[in-house]
């Protein structure tokens, strides 16, 4: 068991998402940085898709009620376990009664905005429609269908497992798989259905501007600030299915990127779609930061997904070998 000691309205239990329920109008939810969630789980020998606690408001504290192996990935929050400093993207073991503290995200090389606390055996909450992710709009999944509150207690699936197989980490994917364009983070995008209906100047600006993530950005969507995108003629559409990553342009011309808690349908025109392999980069980009959209092809999008899959497979292989070695000693 862990007990949440912080009041932080936006901390939720997430896994890799509730795919396969869009046809019932149920959004995907899931970790904003699925790579960090999977990496934390793999460090512990969990399944990559086990549930974890996604922290996006800092500082944050939990107390362990039992001895438990854990991993901390995502934003580097200068975490401590009692008075012991913890490294980022690292596994550790807590003794019953110890308090884990996450400070404000830091970093000059890379700064994330969401941290993931993974527990041995995964965070044990009921599976709803095939996932443990919190579905905020429907108020189900995760822990009682809501964000975590002070005093909430979460169970680890296998608290006593792998206690002697912690104390190592992984090079964060932002360093292992960097993506930059003209000194800003680059987010790869496939042109979407209405892309060609924007003026040539707007299309050029879409691909060259430094887009700023405004404070009106959350797990539902990121509202961006930059040049105004103008269609050649007004575009009116019936509502249609959308997925996380879709970049809509409302009448004001400032795009919105749909994120994990996006509703499954919408009627704004779509200028592009952030590729699945880069959603984690956006999920970690802090409010106020800038980035660029970089055009990519279908094949490049598939190759990028292959690259992240390979990164996870390599982590799983090396972590398993290392845990075996530790277990043998």
């Amino acid at each position, binding site marked *: 068991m862990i007990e949440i000691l912080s009041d932080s309205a936006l901390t939720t239990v997430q896994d890799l998402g509730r795919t396969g329920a869009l046809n019932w109008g149920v959004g995907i939810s899931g970790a904003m940085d699925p790579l960090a969630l999977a990496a934390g789980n793999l460090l512990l020998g969990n399944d990559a898709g086990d549930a974890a606690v996604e922290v996006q408001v800092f500082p944050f504290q939990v107390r362990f009620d039992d001895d438990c192996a854990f991993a901390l990935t995502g934003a580097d929050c200068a975490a401590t376990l009692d008075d012991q400093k913890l490294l980022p993207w690292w596994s550790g073991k807590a003794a019953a009664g110890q308090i884990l503290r996450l400070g404000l995200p830091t970093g000059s*090389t890379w700064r994330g905005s969401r941290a993931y606390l993974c527990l041995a055996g995964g965070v044990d909450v009921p599976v709803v429609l095939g996932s443990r992710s919190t579905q905020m709009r429907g108020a189900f999944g995760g822990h009682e269908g809501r964000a975590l509150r002070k005093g909430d207690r979460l169970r680890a699936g296998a608290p006593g497992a792998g206690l002697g197989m912690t104390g190592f980490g992984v090079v964060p994917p932002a*360093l292992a798989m960097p993506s930059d364009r003209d000194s800003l983070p680059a987010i790869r995008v496939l042109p979407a259905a209405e892309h060609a209906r924007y003026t040539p100047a707007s299309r050029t600006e879409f691909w060259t501007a430094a887009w700023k993530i405004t404070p009106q950005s959350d797990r539902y969507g990121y509202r961006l600030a930059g040049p105004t995108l103008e269609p050649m003629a007004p575009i009116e559409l019936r509502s249609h299915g959308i997925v996380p990553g879709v970049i809509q342009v409302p009448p004001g011309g400032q795009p919105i990127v749909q994120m994990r808690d996006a509703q499954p349908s919408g009627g704004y025109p779509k200028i592009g779609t952030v590729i699945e392999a880069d959603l984690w980069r956006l999920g970690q980009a802090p409010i106020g930061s800038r980035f660029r959209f970089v055009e990519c092809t279908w094949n490049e999008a598939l190759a990028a997904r292959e690259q992240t899959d390979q990164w996870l497979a390599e982590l799983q292989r090396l*972590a398993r070998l290392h845990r075996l070695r530790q277990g043998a000693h």
Partner: protein
Amino acid sequence: MLHIDVDQIAAWLAATDISELELRGPTSSVRLRKDSAGVVTIGDARPPAGPAGMTVTAPTVGIFLHRHPLHDTPLAPTGARVIAGQPLGLLQIGILLLPVPAPAPGIVAGMWAPHGAIVGFGTGLVELHPVAEQA
């Protein structure tokens, strides 16, 4: 003593693209290093330790890091007092990062291997001056 023909091994080494070879026996060890001109020199496997020094060696092959890849400051700068088990540096193996823990409480006297150096099993990494654990 190691009962080996060092000259013969040096000759073999000169004919390969291996730059460093270390042999270790129960009581002694030897390291052969080949420079860019192909000349093999014979030296101690372990860097010489200070009077009360303790050389922390690499537990495995990897890239030795003084600091975490996300951090600007070293884990254990020279002069730092460390407790047993505290990471003095990291070994990167592929994308995995393993700690190089202090075997005993002490003061970091210096680094034998530079940040980013590729090191082998047993390579001296950190010089530690053990001190009694504080009460």
